[in-house]
């Protein structure tokens, strides 16, 4: 069962990347059209366009110097405002937010696609460690998707390196110098150590990815009675899962939670894990259905799709459970330094914050509850698109409030970034899919998997 990325798909991916790059470029140029010289004028202009968008309306309030100042003190860039004797003027603050936006938009999209492939890698390792009998027919699809772990992760780190304090406020020495809380954390939160950690995480993940792929392919060519490659894969998968659950958690503190350096949540690692796991499984289902529609993967039957859809359904509920656990405890305890995280999101990000819960919980719950619907490909695709958009919004809600405050919008910089990374993801994943046969025929469970029937 050979597959080669079709010319149409490759061209499509390249077009997405070009369009995306144009959007990203426009975002950077546009954000710098406002600078120190014309920011006062910009804000004055804004107050004439009353209520153009909900977000702008918030901006207007700020101009009149009302209410939001108190909130500003606590959330994300509050770190800046708290600086003693170095109070930023309102103009300067808005200017920072405007300039942060294209970086943050790029970072959200880069992380989103990276986390999909990392989630698939964890799912793949679980299949091996559990010696699952149903899934080996999908192994090559999963291996294709995980080929994005290394390039995707390096790009995320590269963006951090370049964006610096545009995303991570604790990378700004002036801020740290006036902020006792960040100073206490600076032995962990400093750029050098951050980068080293990032490389260790990525190194571990992609080493596992490299060897599991190698053994999986070697198992195809091995003698029918020789399962040594499978056994090696079993062992490294179990070891990887231990490494993964620690490093994934630390990665989520580093790469996401630290954008709000004053705020912390103890279940954040799990929460991010749930998001990447459900997105990853959804993408496995989407790629499988795509390849099946091309007449490939004829060994994948309804029951495999059914099982993937069950995982999409189940992990969506798991995600909601964690989202709510995090939210309710903080909401109930109402401790100022904790609750500020949700105050910002409910006041400034009301639609994406609650919209995300509807997309990630209500839609999958209602669409995928019926057993029969889980076997209908177009239904699974529809639910999958909703889930993916919902989890993009989830990452958006994690990064944006700390970087652009209430000046968010899903406009050209955000869509451009999404298109760019979608194109790159498709290009890398489908090129990798074409490198080896689509059936891992040497896997000792492959017969069981082909006959899997629910």
């Amino acid at each position, binding site marked *: 069962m050979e597959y080669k990325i079709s010319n149409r798909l490759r061209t499509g991916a390249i077009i997405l990347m070009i369009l995306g790059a144009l959007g990203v470029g426009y975002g950077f140029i546009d954000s710098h059209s406002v600078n120190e010289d014309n920011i006062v004028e910009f804000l004055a202009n804004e107050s004439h366009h009353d209520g153009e968008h909900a977000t702008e309306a918030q901006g207007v309030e700020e101009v009149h110097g009302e209410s939001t100042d108190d909130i500003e003190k606590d959330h994300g860039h509050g770190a800046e405002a708290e600086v003693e004797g170095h109070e930023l003027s309102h103009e300067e603050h808005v200017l920072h937010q405007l300039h942060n936006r294209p970086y943050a938009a790029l970072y959200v999209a880069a992380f989103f696609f990276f986390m999909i492939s990392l989630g698939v890698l964890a799912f793949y390792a679980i299949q091996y460690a559990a010696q699952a009998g149903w899934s080996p027919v999908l192994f090559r699809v999963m291996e294709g998707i995980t080929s994005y772990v290394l390039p995707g992760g390096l790009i995320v780190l590269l963006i951090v390196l370049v964006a610096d304090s545009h995303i991570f406020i604790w990378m700004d020495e002036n801020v740290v110098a006036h902020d006792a809380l960040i100073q206490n954390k600076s032995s962990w939160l400093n750029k050098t150590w951050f980068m080293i950690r990032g490389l260790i995480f990525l190194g571990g993940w992609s080493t596992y990815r490299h060897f599991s792929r190698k053994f999986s392919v070697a198992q195809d060519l091995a003698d029918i009675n020789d399962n040594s490659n499978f056994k090696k894969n079993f062992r490294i998968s179990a070891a990887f899962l231990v490494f993964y659950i620690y490093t994934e958690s630390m990665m989520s503190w580093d790469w996401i939670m630290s954008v709000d350096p004053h705020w912390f949540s103890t279940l954040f690692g799990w929460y991010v894990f749930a998001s990447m796991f459900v997105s990853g499984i959804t993408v496995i289902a989407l790629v499988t259905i795509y390849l099946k529609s091309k007449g490939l993967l004829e060994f994948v039957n309804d029951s495999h799709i059914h099982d993937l859809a069950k995982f999409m359904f189940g992990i969506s509920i798991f995600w909601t459970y964690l989202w*709510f656990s995090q*939210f*309710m405890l903080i*909401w*109930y*305890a*109402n401790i100022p330094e904790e609750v500020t995280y949700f105050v910002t999101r409910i006041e400034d990000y009301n639609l994406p914050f609650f919209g995300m819960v509807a997309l990630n919980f209500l839609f999958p719950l209602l669409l995928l*509850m019926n*057993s029969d619907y889980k076997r209908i490909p177009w239904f699974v695709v529809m639910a999958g698109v909703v889930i993916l958009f919902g989890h993009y919004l989830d990452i958006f809600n994690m990064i944006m409030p700390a970087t652009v405050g209430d000046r968010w919008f899903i406009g050209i910089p955000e869509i451009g970034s999404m298109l760019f990374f979608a194109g790159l993801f498709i290009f890398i994943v489908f090129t990798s899919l074409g490198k080896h046969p689509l059936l891992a025929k040497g896997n000792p469970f492959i017969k069981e998997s082909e006959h899997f*029937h629910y």
Partner: protein
Amino acid sequence: MEASKVIHAIYTDDDVLMSAVKTVRAEKYHIEDVFTPFPVHGLDKAMGLAPTRLAITAFLYGCIGLVFASAMMNYIMIQDWPQDIGGKPSFSFLENLPAFVPIMFELTVFFAAHLMVITFYMRSRIWPFKTAENPDPRTTDDHFLMEIAVHNNEESLTNLLKTTGAVEINIVEKDEDAH
């Protein structure tokens, strides 16, 4: 009531039973019932039973539980005796909703689970102290029993069942009033 004759074919393996069920159905005989010591996967489809509607009732029961919990919390915490808990003296259901969600969730599960089990018992016509209906106690241990109605075709049916691997074939007068 008129007593009817049935054939009891006994098997000792679930795979043999499954293929026997398929053969018997292919020959257009009507299988009254199959008694097994454990649930045999796919047997319902092989016997041509209509899919269960238990899942639909479970969904409805869950909805009832959700509504019940919402109404209950609204009555207790908002209408009847509003309280200031943890500095949240809000008299609005919506603003206090997060605190009620765990209760709503638990009661949804409680209603769905319990009412579904009760529905299952009623639908299967089993209740406490009821005399067991299974015709042969060995079906609770390691034997599988297929029951087929006989309409003056004992011989051909017996011959067919023999070829399907039945270890024992009995013709039984079934008294409808017995249970």
